[in-house]
Structure formats: C-alpha cells, structure tokens
C-alpha cells in the first residue's frame, strides 16, 4: 500500500514536471509578445526611414542610426517639457507628500469627531471621474489666471493625495499605539510624535507611495492637456503627443519613437529599482 502511494506520487510529480514545462513555455511566449512592441519601438528609433517604410519584416536596424536621440533633445520643446514636468513633480511630492503623510497619521492614530465621515468623503472621491470636475476646474483656473502657468497641476495636488493617505493609514495600523501613549506620557507634542517617532517607521511606505505618485505625475496627460494653454508650459507627455501629430505627417517615426522611448525611461528605471515594493503595494490594494 505504502509502496503504491510512493509510486503514484512519483508519476504525479513527473506529470507535474511536464505540465510545468509547458506552462513555462506558454508564459514565456506570452511575455515575449507583451514586450515585443517595446523592442520594436526601440529598434525603430535606430532605423533609417527607408528601412521602416519598406514593409519588410526586418526588426534589427541596418544600418544603425544613432542620431535621432540627440535630434529629439535638440528640439526646443522637449527639454522644456522635461523641466516643466520636474517643476510639477518637486513641489507636489514635497508638499503633497507631507500633507498626505500627516493626514494619514491623524486618521490612524488621533481621535477626533467626524474622523470617519471625513475619511469616507475623501475615499469616495476615488469614484468621481476626472471628466466631471475638469470643466469646473478649468473655469476656476482660467478665472484665477493660472492657465499660463503650471499652477493648475501643482496647487490642487499639494493638498494631498487620497490613495497615498489610504495606503499609509493602512500601513500605520500595523504600528502599535503604545508608542503614541508613551509619547503622550513624556509630554511629547503630536507633531513631534509624528515627526520623530512615527515618520521614521513609515519611511519605506512613504517612499513607495512617493515613487508611485512620481510615476503618475510623469505619465499624466489629460489634466496637462486641458489646463496648460501656452506651449511654453507643456509637460513632457503633451510634448510627445504634439511630436506624434507633427512628425507623423513627415513619416519621421524614428524621431517619434526616440522621443517616446526617452519619455518612458524614467518610470521604467524607477520600476526596476523599486519593483518589489511597488508590486506589493499594488497587490495589497486588491486583497484589503
């Protein structure tokens, strides 16, 4: 009896092994299909116009043309697009990151009336489509005469980010309240308790959220395209979209692809560096 069981499991694990090999091959094929457009994108950026307009399946550039990237960078709008994007990123992440973290601490560790209601109100905003508030916001920013600057993208975001507050609050529930009581007994003020006791413990989670937020701002297109009325304030995504409109008439796809590749590099690098925590943070959102 025992022997048969043993033999059985042997067969089973052998069968299992074959299944795993087949599964691996399928997964790998799928993965290559997923990534292939990116590969083709990079390759196109190095091709001559003759090659990519030849309608032949030749993926490797022949000859290699290196000049498109420097050409992209020399187009006036491109560098200013990067600078404008960074001019949004820095104040938003510093100020908005601070207000969000402080609010998360308050929601998780302090007692005050109306806490639940305020929190639910903020959470409900996730459901509100941006399409609904973009017209009123546009009217508001026009009347404030902000639409010739980056302020429409900076000011509202400085008030905080709901999903960051939500995640940090969740994260804080795993940090014991004893620290709070101890700090109270020592006569430590709330702000100092936050800054010196809790913030160091939240650093990792804050870092992840800031990284995700950085990527979201970097990739944002709809808000910038509505609110930024003068070309000199365009952020990078608006610039590459205008490149696409302008240079596809001339069939200069190498240039368009080079511009898009550069626009994607920062988020891809960030993702590779912080992959583990980013994926964890995404996964948690589904389970919680």
């Amino acid at each position: 009896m025992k022997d048969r069981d043993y033999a059985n499991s042997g067969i089973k694990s052998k069968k299992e092994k074959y299944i795993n090999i087949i599964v691996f091959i399928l997964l790998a094929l799928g993965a290559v299909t997923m990534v292939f457009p990116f590969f083709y994108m990079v390759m196109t950026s190095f091709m001559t116009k003759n090659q990519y307009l030849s309608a032949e399946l030749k993926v490797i550039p022949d000859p290699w043309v290196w000049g498109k990237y420097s050409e992209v960078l020399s187009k006036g709008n491109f560098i200013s697009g990067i600078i404008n994007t960074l001019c949004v990123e820095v104040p938003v992440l510093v100020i908005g990151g601070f207000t969000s973290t402080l609010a998360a601490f308050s929601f998780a560790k302090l007692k005050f009336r109306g806490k639940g209601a305020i929190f639910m109100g903020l959470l409900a905003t996730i459901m509100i489509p941006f399409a609904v508030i973009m017209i009123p916001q546009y009217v508001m920013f026009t009347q404030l005469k902000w639409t010739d600057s980056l302020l429409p993208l900076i000011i509202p975001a400085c008030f905080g980010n709901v999903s960051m507050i939500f995640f940090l609050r969740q994260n804080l529930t795993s940090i014991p309240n004893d620290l709070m009581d101890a700090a109270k007994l020592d006569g430590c003020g709330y702000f100092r308790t936050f800054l010196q006791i809790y913030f160091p413990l939240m650093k990792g989670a804050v870092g992840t959220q800031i990284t995700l937020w950085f990527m979201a701002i970097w990739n944002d297109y709809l808000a910038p395209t509505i609110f930024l009325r003068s070309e000199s304030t365009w952020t990078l995504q608006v610039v590459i979209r205008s490149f696409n409109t302008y240079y596809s008439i001339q069939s200069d796809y190498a240039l368009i692809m080079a511009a898009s590749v550069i626009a994607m590099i920062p988020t891809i690098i960030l993702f590779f560096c912080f992959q583990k925590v980013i994926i964890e943070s995404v996964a948690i959102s589904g389970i919680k």
Partner: protein
Amino acid sequence: MSGQKKVKHHMSAMAKREERTGLLFVAAPAIGFLLFMLWPIIFAVLTSLTNWNGAKGFQGMMSKFCGLNNYVKLFSDRKFWQTLVTTTIYLIGIPIGMILGLLLAMGMNRKIPGVRILRTMYYLPVISSLVAVSILWAWVYNYDYGLLNVIIKTLTGMHGPNWLGDEVLIKVAMIIFMVWKGLGTSIILYLAGLQNIPRNYYEAAMVDGANGWQKFRNITLPLLSPVTFYILVTTLIGGFQVFVEVQVMTPNGNGGIGYSAATIVFYLYQKAFESYQLGYASAIAVILAIIIFIITLINFIGQDKWVKTIE
C-alpha cells in the same frame, strides 16, 4: 471626589487638544476636497443647466440658464448615443483581461523558474506612459508599414487590414491595446490572491478526491472573488473614462472614421474644449457620473451574491 473630578477635567482638556490637532492635521486634504472636488461637482451640475460658453464669469453663466434643455437635447443626440455604445463595447476588454490575467497568474503560481522576470515583463505596459504606448501602438497598427500588417504580409502574403481606418476594426484594435496595457495589473492582483489561499484547502479537497476542475471551481474561484470584485469595480470605473487612447491613436485625434473610436469622455472633451459648449459638455459629464455611480452601486449591492471571504 474633587481629585477625581480634576483628573476628568484634565483628561477632557487633553482630548480636546487631540481633537483640535487631529482636525488640523487632516485640514489640507479636507480643504482640497472641498475646493477641488465638491465645489466643482456642484458647479458642474449648475453649468449643465445653462448654455454657457465660458464668457463673462459666474454671472454670464447664470444669465444663460436653460433648465433641463441640455439633457433633453442629449436624448436625441446621435453622437452621444454612439459614443456611449462605443464606450460600452470597449468594456469587452475587461472580462478578456480578467480571464487572461487569472490564467497567467495560475501559471505563475506553479513552481516554475523566472516568475519574477515574467511578472515584470507582463507589468511593463502598466507603468509605461499611456501617451507613449498609444503612439507606439498607432505605429504597430499602421496600414502600410506597421509591425502587425508586416507580420501578416510575411505570414500570408496578403496585405493586412486597415486597423485604424475601419469602423469595426478600430474598436477591435483598441480593445486589444487596452487588454495589453492593463493585463499586468490583473495578473499581480490575482497572483497575490492565489498566494493568499491557504494550502490546506487544496489538501483537504485532494483527500476528498476532488479533481482539478472541481478544485478550481469550488476553491480557487470563490476564494478569489474579492480580487475579482476589486478588479471589476476599478476597471469599470476606469473603462468609462477612456480618452487618451482615442485622442492619440486616431488620425489627427478626430475620433476615427465616422467617429467610430470616440468614447463618451472624448466627446465631452471636444464639446468643452474645442467648441466651448460648457453647458452641454457638463450635462454629458453629469450623466457620466451618474452612470458610473449606478454601476458601482450595482456592483456593491450584487457582491453579497458571489463575493466570498476567507475565514
């Protein structure tokens, strides 16, 4: 006695301080919510009752009051219905992405090498700029020189179809693109969900002689239902707001031949920021918000029927 009273008084003073501080610390997001969310929502509803084109400020708007006229007009607006239908057709990508994501996640949940690299490869489109990958896919779908038609020509010798120049195919092309873009998220969510299922559930089922399908049907699917629910809710909310893909991928950003690729948000955008019919556009926005609200509500009411939790 008096001592106790004193302590109580002292406590309440501390509690008061905590209350004030607590409110102060959440003041920024709360004010932000009032200024940039709540007020705009009220304003959108007000605007939707006018024929305002943005001129002469708030008073200019109120002087253009027209009641429910915009909503009545919407009912017989062919373009509105067309974009609403197109938006709904795009939602087909949601179940496709969920099924593919679940299958792939189940594959990755086995003992196979390189799962981390595979996962990263599938996730790459998610973190990439939507504008950049829309540009990329417009190039892939290019009629004469795009990767897809070049492959089709190499394999079959025939010229591939005009993906972005055909009223039906452009929708297929959009759905394929959207599935590709979002697949990584459902894989990661499902994979986390699968790893969350206790091993002994499957062991118990084995003892009972359950086969693979039965295990999948009776353990995996029900225990993944919270993840499925989460994906469903978030992708439906997102699915009604498709815009960038349409603007970037259709030639000249015109919404495609016969407006065939245009979504409801795309239509709203054009009404608001190209023809400055702010009142009419706001009415579309209000309808959109109501649709999203109702669908989310249905989801939450319906969840008792099929969403299980692990005890």
